[in-house]
């Protein structure tokens, strides 16, 4: 199935008419139709590849509205796209889709420290926003590891996380309002510049909706005061269990650090070779813990964390002496996914979340599954949140490998769900995980979610095939549960392949 030609859907779509209308509305450089160029937009950073009919590059809210109206008028489904760094196939287009890429909407519109808010366009990159805010004494707290390249619009659509979500919360906690172009082309503001808003929390629904409800065209983010002091610590442990137990002990001691990140031996070796951060490559696992706040709070939390690490047998305690050393410690962690290319050319990862207290049990299960399928697995994850990132490294050119990877990853997902976990902590469901949804939700739950989607998008024009499995239908409560890998692969939407 791997290289089968994609079949298109949505027959009757008038692609050429849409192209002409988009070129008239956005200018000739505002729309892409060259088949070779379109290939770039056929996927995001996941394993799923699709295809699209056109890509549009709006520069303003009005442009976005034009894109949506033209797509509707010419029968094209719409796939919103930020930086394309998503890991679940949420931005992978299928069939005769119009991809609306927001990369050219990259202005920070307004910064109002007195109201603790800023308005930005969706194409603003996460790190660019944090950097621009720094002189005001505030920051935008969510910091996904891809923050150099991921956009705020993409962050909003996936309800992105990041290491510092442990203390500061995920994207949804930091979005005050969104201006959304609905599937009929109308612009609506959900949420408010103030702390409360009239009506149902539609902003809360749009955040994390993976582009299935509308296109987020402007975002009002909450500003968080920069902490007066920060301490970044690195511990190394002889066993994975001791490392994970430290996490549990820290939380049990009533300390909620800004971040607790765990890396196992395999990923430490790969990241060290890339970042030269001075990671101890002979440790079974390392822990990066950051505490922040007033200097007095940093001191108290730092002592408590260090005590927990020592109790669990850390061999060294490294405290970043300055901002440069702190940046170096984080560099290895934030670039870990890139660094695994040293292990094998391809990787596949999940981002299941499990209760913190189940970390040790689930991790040993993950190693067991990888061994059984003869795969290399490395783990780097947000341990404080219980948000795993088991990374399976492989070479898909070796026959049979991809199937083993998919089988192992399904077993990992089932293991996490059985431990009381959820499918995704921050990457989203997209295409890759949608057929796992029945593992955590009943048919009635999924039907209700489809009703919710239909309330925004009655024609199901926005990012079709994503998030909900094919059988979930509003008003239809009978659907199959838990499918096999073969069935799941066979059920991938027409026009997509792994």
């Amino acid at each position: 199935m791997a290289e089968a030609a994609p079949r298109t859907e949505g027959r009757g779509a008038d692609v050429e008419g849409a192209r002409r209308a988009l070129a008239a509305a956005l200018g000739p450089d505002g729309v892409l139709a060259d088949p070779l160029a379109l290939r770039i937009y056929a996927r995001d950073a996941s394993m799923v590849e699709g295809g699209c009919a056109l890509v549009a590059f709006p520069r303003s809210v009005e442009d976005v509205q034009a894109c949506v109206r033209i797509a509707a008028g010419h029968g094209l489904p719409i796939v919103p796209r930020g930086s394309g760094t998503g890991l679940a196939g949420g931005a992978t287009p299928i069939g005769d889709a119009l991809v609306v890429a927001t990369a050219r909407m990259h202005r920070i519109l307004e910064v109002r420290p007195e109201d603790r808010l800023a308005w930005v366009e969706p194409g603003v990159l996460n790190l660019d926003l944090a950097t621009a805010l720094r002189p005001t004494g505030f920051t935008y707290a969510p910091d996904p590891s891809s923050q150099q390249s991921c956009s705020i619009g993409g962050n909003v659509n996936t309800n992105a996380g990041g290491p510092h979500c442990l203390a500061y919360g995920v994207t949804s906690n930091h979005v005050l309002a969104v201006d959304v172009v609905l599937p009929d082309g109308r612009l609506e503001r959900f949420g408010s510049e103030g702390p409360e808003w009239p009506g149902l929390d539609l902003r809360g629904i749009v955040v994390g909706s993976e582009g299935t409800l509308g296109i987020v065209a402007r975002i009002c983010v909450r500003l968080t005061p920069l902490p007066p002091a920060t301490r970044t610590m690195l511990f190394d442990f002889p066993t994975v269990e001791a490392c994970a137990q430290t996490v549990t002990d820290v939380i049990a001691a009533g300390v909620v650090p800004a971040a607790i990140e765990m890396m196992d031996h395999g990923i430490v070796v790969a990241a060290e070779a890339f970042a030269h951060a001075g990671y101890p490559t002979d440790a079974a696992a390392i822990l990066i813990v950051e505490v922040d706040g007033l200097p007095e709070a940093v001191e108290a939390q730092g002592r408590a964390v260090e005590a927990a690490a020592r109790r669990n047998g850390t061999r060294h305690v490294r405290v970043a002496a300055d901002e440069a050393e702190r940046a170096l410690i984080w560099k290895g962690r934030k670039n870990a996914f890139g660094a695994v290319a040293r292990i094998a050319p391809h990787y596949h990862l999940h981002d299941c979340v499990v209760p913190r207290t189940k970390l040790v049990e689930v991790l040993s299960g993950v190693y067991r599954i990888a061994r059984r399928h003869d795969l290399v697995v490395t783990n780097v994850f947000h341990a404080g949140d219980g948000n795993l990132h088991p990374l399976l490294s492989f070479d898909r050119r070796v026959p049979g490998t991809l199937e083993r990877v998919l089988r192992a990853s399904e077993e990992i997902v089932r293991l996490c769900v059985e431990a009381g976990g959820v499918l995704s902590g921050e990457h989203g469901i997209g295409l890759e995980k949608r057929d796992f949804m029945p593992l955590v939700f009943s048919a009635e739950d999924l039907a209700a979610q489809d009703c919710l989607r239909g309330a925004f998008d009655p024609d199901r024009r926005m990012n079709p095939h994503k998030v909900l499995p094919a059988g979930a239908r509003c008003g239809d409560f009978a659907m199959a549960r838990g499918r096999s890998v073969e069935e799941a692969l066979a059920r991938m939407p027409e026009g997509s392949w792994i």
Partner: protein
Amino acid sequence: MAVPTLHPHTKADVRAMLREASGRGTRVLVTGGHRHLDKGNPVPVDVELWTTQLDRIVAYEPADMVAVVEAGIRVGHLAAVLGERGQEWPVDQPADATVGGVIAAGASSPRRLRVGAVRDSVLEVEVVTGDGRLVKGGGRTVKNVTGYDLPRLLTGSLGTLGAIVQVALKVRPLPRARRTLVARGDALDLGRRLLEAVPLAAAVLASPGTVEVRLEGWPAEVEAQTAAARRVTSELLVLEEADFPTVRPWQDAPVVVEAALPPSRAPALAAAAGEAWGALLGAGIVWVGLPSADGALSGLRARVAELGGIAPVVRGPGGLGEPPPPAMDVQRRLKAAFDPRGILAPGRGWGGL
């Protein structure tokens, strides 16, 4: 006039009751501790469904900082259970309010600058829809993007979408030290200076002639914050472990409005609000006490609207007020998806939802 009441003991009871109500077209008001019922447009109903018998703690693992409880559990009971393990669900609502009621009303803590809003603490929700379906959304982990965010949809929905029967809550460690600083003077000016000077305060509440600064955290941290406050004014009353706030001049008014507006505009509203107000500086919440729900209320609401905010009544008559919510067609379709027969307090929500 009192309406008949229903007292389900199980989720199955709730399902059966609402299914039957939908079949008959009986209008139902879902209630908990009757502490937040004034928030919402007053509408006639045929029956009240009390969730107070659904009061079990389903699962609580302190090391996960997650508590799963049935919706009818009282806030005070939950606080006692969490407190034994050194944790809290930070909402600061009346002890006899129910967890479900607090969530349905979207009632957040006055410490929201530090602890966040109630919408950020609901991880999973189980809701019985108007036609008796049991629907779950979210998950029991502190972080989750698996499917649409039903917990946030239900938070603040005022009982118009379903009966919340169970929730998973994100809880947090109790602060090791708590302190309230009280200063007297020109409250809005003094409050502004204290908000700027005291890093990471949990709340700065200005009311006529008084500012209260709420501090919480590690003992040394609270000391440092106190020292920062003293650099603004030396005349500080220091109250250890006291309730917060100590004065609420708006509290005993017949009508209490909870205005929400961009934080920098809160002082402008407070300055024109008479003598019965309190403003959470930096957070954009202003409570105003009014003698009645007539002319004064519409005047206040007009002023709040100019300032870009909303002004629902949270105690007494007066309802939610303007403006109508955005995308009313979307809101109506959401209502229809969860309550197809329209039996759940129809008209109680914003825009008459």
